């Protein structure tokens, strides 16, 4: 998967960074608020519609899922076995009190497992909606305007901006190791793969340390942290669309909380 942080042109591109951050936060809260699979499926469908509107490459979704499906299976299995449900569906062993397992697969366990997996999917795919439709300087500005301390905003945007270069370096190192007779896909067994990954991780991590030292020197030489009030080259203003989206987000947030208080949205 190639991480590409060039902001894609789309309707989301023109929104204010603060609007997108607000909507992002609301989606995060809602997805954690509800634990009923149907509610989370609805949220997921909504986020996928936004993906479509944002014109982000669908290949990226596929790649993310390629990485995620194994984790998903593990989560699902763990929840199915250990969620203390009441509607027994299938007896698969005698009760095992030592690990808190009743011996039955329960309906609640399955529902919670599915909800958990879908939650993670939503959280995973909602972040690129923000990052890939907002140029980093605008993201930085939005954070600062939301009163996030400048240093923290800088750390966040720098970390993001380094991702593509780290990925690029990883692929060069991988090529260099292939040339030394190391093969990442063959050798089959787990130990072999682990050994091969050492050859990638060590140069990658050491390189990242070196880069960060260089960055530190560069920042210091440009007076980073000087005790002055910062001004910004860019400025951003809310448009009607921003106000509408923030209002809708707030209504959704309050609505979600009310529903939850009334007892909806849990299984």
């Amino acid at each position, binding site marked *: 998967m190639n991480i590409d942080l060039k902001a894609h042109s789309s309707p989301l591109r023109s929104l204010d960074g603060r609007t997108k951050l607000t909507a992002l936060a609301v989606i995060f809260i809602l997805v954690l608020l509800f634990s009923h699979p149907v509610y989370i499926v609805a949220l997921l469908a909504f986020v996928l519609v936004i993906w479509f509107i944002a014109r982000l490459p669908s290949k990226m979704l596929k790649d993310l899922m390629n990485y995620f499906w194994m984790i998903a299976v593990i989560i699902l299995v763990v929840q199915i076995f250990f969620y203390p449900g009441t509607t027994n569906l299938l007896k698969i062993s005698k009760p095992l009190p030592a690990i808190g397992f009743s011996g039955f697969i329960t309906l609640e366990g399955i529902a919670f497992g599915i909800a958990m997996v879908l939650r993670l999917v939503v959280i995973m795919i909602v972040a690129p909606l923000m990052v890939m439709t907002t140029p980093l300087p605008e993201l930085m500005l939005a954070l600062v305007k939301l009163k996030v301390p400048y240093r923290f905003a800088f750390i966040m945007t720098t970390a993001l901006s380094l991702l593509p270069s780290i990925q690029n370096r990883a692929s060069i190192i991988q*090529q260099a190791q292939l040339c030394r007779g190391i093969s990442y896909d063959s050798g089959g067994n787990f130990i072999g793969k682990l050994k091969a990954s050492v050859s990638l991780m060590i140069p990658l991590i050491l*390189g990242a340390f070196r880069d960060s030292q260089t960055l530190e020197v560069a920042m210091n030489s440009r007076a980073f942290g000087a005790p002055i009030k910062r001004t910004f080259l860019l400025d951003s203003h809310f448009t009607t669309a921003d106000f509408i989206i923030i209002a809708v987000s707030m209504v959704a947030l309050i609505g979600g909380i009310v529903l939850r208080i009334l007892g909806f949205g849990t299984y």
Partner: protein
Amino acid sequence: MDDNVAIQCEDVSFSYPNGVQAIHNVSLTIYKGDYIAFVGQNGSGKTTLVKHFNGLLKPTQGQVLVFGEATKSKRVSQLSRKVGYVFQNPDDMLFCTSVTDEIAYGPRMLKMDAEEVKAKVESIIIELGLSEYRDTHPFALSLGDRQRLAVACALSLDPQVFVFDEPTTGQDYFGSQSIMNLIDQLHQKGKTVIIITHDMPIVAEHAKRVVVMNKGQVALEGTPEEVFTQIDKLQSLSLKAPQVTMLARELGLQGTTILHVPEMVDWLTNNYLPAIEPAAGEMSL
């Protein structure tokens, strides 16, 4: 297939997954024992083309034959025993905790016999002058020595062909000389050597054949004499012949192509020195 051919590119084109076509219909034959330099502007496709020689990249059209076998169905790790590739930055290759382990890693991965590996590592250490660093951590070595170690790692797989991507970048004069001497030695032992470089004097002094790349195609190809005498053509490709070659041309030296300083010294000595009587003790060449 001719027995003397090491690598053959047949109408090779390559496009990156993002759709950018980096190589356009290149056909090129590299013979056993060649000492060939790829030059060209950044982005001209040198590295992309050369990465086809050991299967790091596979042509999207046409084919690359390494000792008669198409790279398409081969793994890089298989081809690494035939074509060694030394990356520009040795730190991308090194990760072990001692020089000895570093050199032994590749042969061990390819499951060579332990005794054989030991003997091989020892002979390489001596050959490359790394014997005082046997147990040193690779990251404690100087850049020049790390680069020698990277060469040692490629050497440990005993390939017939060596590719060096910008071997002298970031090195001072003596560092460059030392790595180029090492490359010359490999060539003298009968290895096929391919270098990518921006340093024209190095090309003129060391390479036997030059390939000039431009916009993913071979723009010019021949011996250093043939290539560096086409000064205007080179200029149109944003390249410059070595200064001494340009000087010779500006001076209007006829009947000879001067590619490096010793040649210029010889030429001046032969043609002018008899006419100039050096003052006693003042001039000695």
